[in-house]
């Protein structure tokens, strides 16, 4: 029986391994394609000049990070809801892995935003609503990790973590809208409602294509990192269980 499970787990390990490798390669290729498209292929923004025109190219990374973080946090709330319904630890690991990946990509959003803001708005930091909302979001999820860390029992960790992740996600739209109404100088690229926002630009065909590459690349990046981390967490828990069995 034990040999059977062992060989079964070996096949599943090999399956995951292949998926992971494929994802990693795809991510690397997509990222290279994004660099090329963002720096060379996309036409410069016509209504901008000098530093601002150059800085605009970071927008593709910025938007990619933004989408990647959004997908990550959507995944985390999915994981937490499914965990609360099924109590399947795999879903708790999905929540944790998504949040950890989301924090990294979310920090990417904030950093690329700040780098772009220096030439465009002449400051790294402003109380721009999107900047505020994404920074608060990253802080909320860092609090999630701290909170988990402060709980000893593994199942309590999963349960309380899932409850907090649910609250965290629900607060994001409210944070976003209140920040938006509070104060806004951020260019809204797709709405057209806030074109007088400083540093705004019209979007052309090559730009749209580059944006799509960015979206795909960052979704792949999220999947690769998240699945890698998820498998690692799985091994950690399995190791812990073995240790428990050994000592009991």
């Amino acid at each position, binding site marked *: 029986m034990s040999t059977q499970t062992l060989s079964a787990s070996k096949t599943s390990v090999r399956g995951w391994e292949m998926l992971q490798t494929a994802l990693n390669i795809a991510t690397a290729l997509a990222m290279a394609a994004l660099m090329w498209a963002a720096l060379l292929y996309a036409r410069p923004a016509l209504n901008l000049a000098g530093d601002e025109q150059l800085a605009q190219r970071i927008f593709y990374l910025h938007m990619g990070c933004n989408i990647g973080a959004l997908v990550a946090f959507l995944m985390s709330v999915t994981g937490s809801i499914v965990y609360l319904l099924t109590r399947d630890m795999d879903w708790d690991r999905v929540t944790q892995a998504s949040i950890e990946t989301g924090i990294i990509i979310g920090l990417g959003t904030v950093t690329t935003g700040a780098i772009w803001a220096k030439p465009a708005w002449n400051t790294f930091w402003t109380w721009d609503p999107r900047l505020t909302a994404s920074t608060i979001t990253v802080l909320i999820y860092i609090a999630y990790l701290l909170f988990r860390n402060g709980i*000893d*029992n*593994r199942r309590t960790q999963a349960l309380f973590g899932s409850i907090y992740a649910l609250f965290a996600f629900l607060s994001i739209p409210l944070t976003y809208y209140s920040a938006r109404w509070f104060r806004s100088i951020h260019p809204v690229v797709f709405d057209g409602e806030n074109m007088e926002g400083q540093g705004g630009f019209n979007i052309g065909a090559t730009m749209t294509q580059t944006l799509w590459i960015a979206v795909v690349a960052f979704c792949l990046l999220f999947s690769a990192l998240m699945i890698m981390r998820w498998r690692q967490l799985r091994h950690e828990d399995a190791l*812990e269980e073995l*240790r*428990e069995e050994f*000592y*009991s």
Partner: protein
Amino acid sequence: MSNQALISVQGITKRFDRKPVLRGVDLAVAPGEIVTLLGANGAGKTTLMRIISGLSAPDRGEVQLGGASFATGGHELRRYIGLVSHTPLLYDNLSGEENLAFFARLYDLVEPQARIEWALHAVDLWPRRRDAVRTYSRGMTQRLAIARAILHNPPVLLLDEPDTGLDQAGADLLHGLLQQLDTAQRAVLFTTHNLSRARAWADRVALLVDGRIVQMASTVGMTDADLQKLYREAGRPA
């Protein structure tokens, strides 16, 4: 069904993080029966009490009270439990009477005032009923904790070391109360470190060693020396 055990515990296992606390406990207490749970500190007595009262969920196994489980009985099943635990489960800033009045509301008592008076008299705290629990001695707090547990006349009484902090008079009072409460409709499970009390007060004793019940014996015809021998032998590693 009605002749079956009032408290029925089957195959309970529980671990806290790495450490297994209960490793498959089976126990049945019939109506009208008093059973003592004996065991060293850390043997799992308190964890078992918490699981039977529904405060903690077992990893495996099932608890049934009068044939109903917490899964099917829901929160109404909690009416049938009276618990005395290591902590008094009382509010220090309220008086003895206010504490009982609060719990009378939570348990929907029909005639709360009469019932509170009965409970206060039963544990001999009537004269001190208006004083804050903060000012009570350890023994008085413990007696009020007992009054709280029996206030709603529960058919299942779980007493986790109810004699801690009680002087001889308090212990005698508790013994008398147990005899008075020992009716055909009630099952009592209690833990203690005092072997002669365990023998004298109960119908059966169960020995819990390292998360398992290793001995179950009737107290009929048992002497203190018998129980001591049993306890010593059970605790010895195999």
